[in-house]
Structure formats: C-alpha cells, structure tokens
C-alpha cells in the first residue's frame, strides 16, 4: 500500500504526462486506475485542481463509469453477462452457480482476494451466450466451470 505522499507524486506524474491532451479526464482516470488498481479518493481533488474542475465534477465522472473502482479488485475479475441474449441461454443459472461456488455476491471479492465477481450488460458476444470475461479475456458459452477457468 502506498502512503499518501507516494500517491500524490504518482498522480502528479500521471497529470504531467497528460498535460498536452485535449479532454484529458478519462485518459487520466484510466491511467490512475492502471497505476493503483482503483481511483483513490485522494486523487479526486488533485485531478480536479489540475484540470480546473471541481471535485464534484470529477466524482460525477468517476461514479458514472462502473469500471472505475473505488477500491482495488481481487487478483482476478470475473464478469458475467446479464443481458437478454445470455439470460435466454441460462446466464442466471450460471450466475447462481458461480456465486455459490465463490461464496460471494455481485461486486464482492472472495475473502482470500482471489476473485471479484461483477455483472456486465452485454459483452457483444450474444451469439455465444452465456458470455463472460475473465481478466479482460472473453469466454463464450460458459457454465459453472468458469470458476475453475478463473482459478487457473
């Protein structure tokens, strides 16, 4: 865990690297999440000040996008599609089984920090439902076995 001085310095570097960019808020937030695994609260006022925005505005943007995290995720992130096509192919059953297997609910992380489970609405893989995404990698026609996939 970084202490606050390190956080401030690292964010300053990120802000510096994006200084020439037009519309820099989203690229900066991505870079911050890349660096810390989440967007720390301390980053919000610092980014706001650098971009001539208010902290409320930055907070509004961060919370609008589900992929910006308030806290770091587990080592693996498992996203299960909850949209119509996948539901028609049994996504709810898969989700129930995965939750039971991991012992957690949506948006939660296993106590050992191994897996974070998240719902997602359409991965663009409707022809191969139920669809999932493991650490950024798409998986089609998944079933309960996806948990084992994550563990690999």
């Amino acid at each position, binding site marked *: 865990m970084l202490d606050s001085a390190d956080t401030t310095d690292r964010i300053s570097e990120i802000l510096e690297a994006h200084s020439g960019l037009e519309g820099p808020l989203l690229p900066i937030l991505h870079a911050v999440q890349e660096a810390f695994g989440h967007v720390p*609260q301390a980053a*919000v*006022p610092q980014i*706001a*000040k650098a971009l*001539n*925005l*208010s*902290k*409320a*505005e*930055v*907070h*509004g943007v961060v*919370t*609008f996008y*589900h992929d910006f995290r*308030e806290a770091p995720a587990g080592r693996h992130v498992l996203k299960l599609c909850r949209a119509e096509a996948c539901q028609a192919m049994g996504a709810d059953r898969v989700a129930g089984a995965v939750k039971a297997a991991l012992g957690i609910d949506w948006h939660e992380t296993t106590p050992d920090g191994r897996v974070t489970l998240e719902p997602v609405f359409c991965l663009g893989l409707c022809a191969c439902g139920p669809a999932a995404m493991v650490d950024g990698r798409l998986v089609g026609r998944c079933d309960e076995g996806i948990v084992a996939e994550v563990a690999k």
Partner: protein
Amino acid sequence: MKDFIIPDRDFGTPAAKSKQMVTLTIDGFDVTVPEGTSIMRAAAEAGIQVPKLCATDSLEAFGSCRLCLVEIEGRNGTPASCTTPVAPGLKVHTQNAKLKQLRRGVMELYISDHPLDCLTCAANGDCELQDMAGAVGLRDVRYEAVETHFRAKNTSGEANPQWLPKDDSNPYFAYDPAKCIVCSRCVRACEEVQGTFALTIEGRGFDSRVSFGAKTDDALASDCVSCGACVQACPTATLTEKSIIEIGTPSHSVITTCAYCGVGCSFKAEMRGDELVRMTPYKHGKANRGHSCVKGRFAYGYASHKDRILNPMIRDSINDPWQEVSWPEAMEFAATKMKGIQAKYGRQSVGVITSSRCTNEEAYLVQKLTRAVFMNNNTDTCARVCHSPTGYGLGQTFGTSAGTQDFDSVEQTDVVVVIGANPTDGHPVFASRLKKRLRKGAKLIVIDPRRIDLVDGPHVKAAHHLPLRPGTNVAVVTALAHVIVTEGLMNEAFIRERCDWDEFQDYAEFVSQPQNSPEATELLTGVKADELRAAARLFATGGNGAIYYGLGVTEHSQGSTTVIGIANLAMLTGNIGRPGVGVNPLRGQNNVQGSCDMGSFPHELPGYRHVKNDAVRSVFEGMWGVTIDNEPGLRIPNMLDAAVEGTFKGLYCQGEDILQSDPDTKHVAAGLAAMECVIVHDLFLNETANYAHVFFPGSSFLEKDGTFTNAERRINRVRKVMAPRNGYADWEVTQLFAQAMGANWTYTHPSQIMDEIAILTPSFAGVSYEKLEEMGSVQWPCNEKAPEGTPLMHIDGFVRGKGKFIRTEYVATDEKTGPRFPLLLTTGRILSQYNVGAQTRRTANVVWHDEDVLEIHPHDAEVRGVKDGDWVRLASRSGDTSLRAKITDRVSPGVVYTTFHHPDTQANVITTDFSDWATNCPEYKVTAVQVSPSNGPTEWQEDYNAQAAHSRRILAAE
C-alpha cells in the same frame, strides 16, 4: 404593509436575446417571440403552461424529465418543448389524447419512487411535483415499486441500501435524498448560476443521486458556498430552507433590497404574519437577476438576535452601567448634553457620522442634523475608510464620483481586470455573473497580492495574475500604462476625441519614462516584467476591457493616485462609454454610494457640491431655513484628533462601529474616551458603544422604508416588512433627536425626505417613490435629461467635459518593512462574514468562519517556527494582537493576510494611522508587522475584553 403582486411566473427557459422575431401557432393561437426561444417559453408567453419538472427559466433547457412533450404538425414524434426552438409557421399542440397519456405515464414512474407524505412534507403547497401530478391528472400508480430510494427499510425490516439519510450539515438548508427526482436543476444552478460546481450527479441510471462534492463530502464539507441557488431551483422538498421546515410556507411577500454588500440584490421577503419565513432572490432585480449569496439569502437572523438592544439607554460616565430609559428621556438627556457641549466648547465641538448601512433618507437626515441643527459641517461617513479615494479619483478624471457601468455590462466584456478586490468573497453575486462571462470566453487579469479564488478555480483561470507587493499599486498601474503607451497600443482616436490631448501628451511623456517600465518596477513590485507586459497587451488589444476594483486599491496612502491611474488606463484604451467596458468600484457596504451621494462628507453638500459654493448653499438654505457654515467640517480622523486635543466633545454616530472598523484602535479609543457625549445609534452594543453615553436602538432593514444606492448607482427600494422592534425606524429616531435639539422637522414618511433630496440635488431630480414603484429601480443621474436614469455614464462625453489624464507618480508609503517589522500585513474579508461581523457573527454563518486567522506563507512560518493552527502574536508599531496562523501559499513570501470580522482579534490594533494623501482614507492594506509564536491572547486583548464586558453592563429594571 403592502402585499405586492409579483410577476414572477416561471417561463421554463431563459429569454432569448435575438432581435429577429418568429411567429408560430400554439394550440391555435399565434405567438410571436424572438428567434431562439423554446416552444415551452413561447407557450408560456401566450399563457399556456406546458407541464414540466426539469425546466426553470433561470437555467438552460436540459430535456430530461420528458413531461413537457408536445406534438408539432409535420414532425415525427413528441419532442420536448423546452429543448425545441421555435421556427416560423410551426403548428404546435401542447395537449391531446396521446400527450396526456404519455405525460401521465411519465408521472406514474416518478411517483412510483417518491414518498406520498405530502401532508407532512415541508414543500406542501410549494411543490412542482405535486402541481404536475395535478396537472397531468394522475389518479393511480400502476407500478408497485420493489426497490425504492425513499423507504429506509424494506417490508421485512432490512435496511434499504438505496436509502440515504437527510444531510443537515448546512445550517440553513436540508438535503433529503428520499424526495429527490434527479431533475438536475440543483446541479445546473450550481454550475450555471453560481459557478461553484459543488454539486454533481453521481452514479448512473437508477443509482443516479445528487451529491455534494466527492464521496466523503457532505453539504458543509463540499465546495458549497451556500448561495441558495440549488434550493431555489429545487422543485420538490429535497433541498429546502430549514426555516420553511420549521415554520411552514409563507403567505405573502414584499420586494426589498439586501442590506449587506454594495451589489444591492433585490429580494423577496417572504412572510407569514410579521414573521420572516425566508428571503429569496427576486428574479426581476436588476443588480442580481435572481441570484443571491449566503449573507443576503440566509444570514438575516441577526435582526431577531437576543443581543439586539430594543430600549434606549443612557449613562453619565462610560464606567457606569447602562440605564434603560424611555425614548423621551433619552432624547432629553442627549439633547441637553449636546446643547451643553456646544454652549461650553463652541459650535464646532460636536459632529455626526452617517452610516453606509442605513438608507439614503437616513444618511441625508443625519448630515442635515449637523449642517442645519448643530450648525457646522462636521459630518463624515464610513465611506471615508473605504471608497473616499474613488470619489476623488473618478471625480477628478471623469467628473463624477461613481462607477461607470451597470452590472449587466459584464455580459459584454472581453477582458476583465480585477484589482485589489476579491469578488467571490466580498461581492459574491457579481462574482457569479463575472464567472459566467469568463466561462463564455472572456479573459481575466487579476492584480492582487493574494491568489484569490478567481485566479484559479473550477472553469475559471486568470490569464494573468500579477501578485504585487502590498503598497505598490501605483507602480503596477503606471507600468501597465507604460507598456500601452510605449508599444503604441493606445486608442488614439478615442483620446483625441474624448480627452484633452495636451494632458494626454504630458501623461504619455511621464509614463514613458524608463523608471516606469515594468522592468524597472519589477524589483519594487515583485511583479514579473514579461507577465505585466503580456497583461497590458491583452487589456489594450483584447476587445471590451472593464476594470473592477475594490478596497485593495483605495485603502492605501496612494489610494486616490491608483484610482486616477485606473481611470487613465480606461481612457488610454478607449474603454469608457459603452456596454462591456468602464471603471467599476465594488462598494463594500450596501449604501456606500448613497451615503456619499447624500452629502455625508464634510466638504460636500448632497450631490457632491462643495460647501464653499455660495449658489449651492443658498439652495439648501432656502429649503432648510438656516444659514449653512461655509467652511468644510472635520473628517473622522480629524474629529478623533480634535477630541484627543480637547476641542471636539460630542458625536452622534449612526450605524457604524468606528472603534472596530477604523485604523489604529488605540487612537480611536482615546478619542472616544475624551468626548463628553457619544451617542451610538445601532442594533447592538457595538465596540464603539463601550465609549458611549447614549444608546439609541436602531431598526433593521426589514423594519423601515427607504432606499439604498448600490455600486452601479442603482437606487433600490427598501420596504418595511415588519414594525420596528425598537419602536422607531432610524430616520424617526434622528428626527426625534433633531426635534429635541429644537428643530422643526415633520417628516411622516421617507418618501417626503426623498422628495426634498430630489428638489435639492440635480442628479436626483427625477427620483421619487412613485417612479421607483413603477420602474423597480433607477440609476442616477435621473432628471429631465435622463428621466429613466442612466445605466451607462460618459457615453458621448465625460461628465466633466474632456477626460483628464493626471500623472501618477509612485511614492512609496512611509509604512516600510525593516528589521523589527519585516512582513507586510494586508487585510480583507471572507464570504460568510460581513465587515466588522456585527450582523453575520450573530447568525449561523459562524460555522464557516468563527475566528480571524493569519494567512502566512510556509517559508515565513518555517523560519519563525510557526505551525498551522498555532497561536501567533502579530505586532506592528501601533500595537499587537494574537490569533491563529493558517499556513498557505495563497500569500507570497513576505506577505501575511487576515480578516477583521471579529472583535476578539481587533486586527485594527495593528493598522497604522497612515492614510490617503487626498482623502485620509486609511492605509489598511499595508502594515509592516512581525509574527512570532505565542501562547494565546495578548495582554491588550484581555484588557480590552475586560473593559468591554465592564462597559456593557445594563442595570436590571427596577
């Protein structure tokens, strides 16, 4: 009391400014409106209200609520009328079977996630959601809400994670998320109207919530400045004044004018019986255009504070306790004393101080009291200590002692220069209007020792900040002129036509001298030469240039010179006499302009006419039936000096706390202590009253009729909304006192006083209460030449004829830093407190600022071993005081800064007796000081507090 019928219907979207008119048909009626008007507004102007929730005419259309749908013949679908502009020949239908069904469906969805506790809701009777449910004929809600935002617990008793508790952190309004319909009106008001951007919508979809600041903030901890714009915009009970929650909805309202700063905002005092329920900004107010700040909107509680004195009091010695007496006894006592003093020490031994917080009529009567009853010209006003150099400087160069523009002018400005002013704190409503213009692309130059909020904030960034060393204004302003002249950027056509060419040549020769170049003055002023050059070029070439300045300009030993320099800059660049330009002093108090206009200065009769002028005197003598002294009287500092010398013995001081607000407190105290009769006329036992023998209780602005004149020369009506709690309005008290002194005054209403002023003063000749009633407000000069008043001055020529360029030689102040006092102290104020704080300290505004702190740069703090929050001793050659330190890089190294809102600190113990060469305006803004660690209050502060407590004793009624 009168109940006014107020034309403040909500038209849904702002008025379009186009001159091109468009005619369309709405529900069969032809409507003609300016191009760019929304269909919603066009319908409203024809008297047809389209149902709406997210639209209000103070905000740009947003189109989120989907309630204002209409059908347009020949177009597909049902567009939102708020976001659809009019076009020629459109045939619009606002009501048919399809629209009715759609609206009712939308409304059902809203209500499915809204509590149905209307009867016990604070917005009951004042709720747009309720109104719209009625308007669309909602009779049933088909949806059964499983998940809601408003139930704290679900049916099985589990906590509802979607439910958020009420945020009561702000002392004046509550945020209840359970009632929110997420229309974004509050967020948009904070952005568009106030410009603070403290609110946002967090999350998305069903999770969307209004949020103050970031995740961990509440309303108080966020950037919120409590201006009330969000509360004003909220259509439901989500954001509600706590006074409404406590009292209920108002039954009637009266339009009046705020009694805080010189912006002069119009307000509706919303009443139930004679209880003030809330103050809301009046959208037809021409100074504020429907906006407000925390002081005017919420901080009116001082008028009913328990500290307020309601009975007259007298005492023979300032060591005695006060004795409450009847009004006749107090008048008798005071008149006997004053008559005795004049008999013993002569006609010139007494005087008056008029108040910039009281009405024009009251200031006029007080100066009339000294000129026509005391028979001398010993009158002065608190404007002496703030804007007297403005009067002198602008009078000399332009010919009139006032700002040249109205506030609307800022909407057309391209380059704004702010010098020695901190509008976001001192003049917040003007600052919001300025920031709105800056967000639309105008450029900003800030000349201030401190990095004020305007320099760098959400969506506002100064193009140039020139952080000058306190006391070097003249050098900086002259250097700006040097760049403009030597680089040939001046507007020669304007100068040749409007100004005296010979005087210009003399001035040009002077400013072109090498010692006035930015490179030469850099060492002196601390302002980087290239930055200053860039700023000068921007101002000269950037389009309409307007200069706004405040007390950071005037309160210097060369205050008048800086004002002249500013006027020179405006003339050099041709920035006078049209919208968007000009020279605009930001007045500190509500009626600084008015009290000056009313002849409060010892050398000037009302309308800025010298007492030596026989013709002028004879007009007044004819009306008043007395002979007026032809010698100017004493200024405040002269009065105090004369008191210490023993020749000035009696003072009637209305609505000013000279002990706390005037410089060099010890000298003021000595002067007051040497007088035999000090009459203080105020709401509270202020610091000056510690040295008073007679106390006349004052009335608040809610309790009297009259007028205030704001910084744009606008005469606004103040209206009585309740009876004076002390028995008499202030003008009546002055009249009673004059009568006790033997005068035959018989005014029965302030309108009669204004009529007298209009007869005697050419610039007010056309002003009357009837005209103010009819026009709302009027900007002087108002006479036969300008019957509707004068929003912009010097349009075709300067009032004095040709604009006058005057050399502005920089002379360093005698107040210099040295080994004993190496730092420069400058003073200012903050948003939530006002002046000496007598009013705002007696409101919940103290949650934002409960003590004065000393801002000091980290370097200066480091070498002195001072940490943030430490007690420090602040000493100058005048005196010392203690307060807590706040370490910040807002101030430059070598400069420290504090406010003067709290008597416990008494920052003016530190300030010196140096003053402006022309007007005696004290040099508050520059004092050489030393800062050292300390354990707590100084001996002086403890003595002072003991004396104050001793002096404030009141005998128990027998």
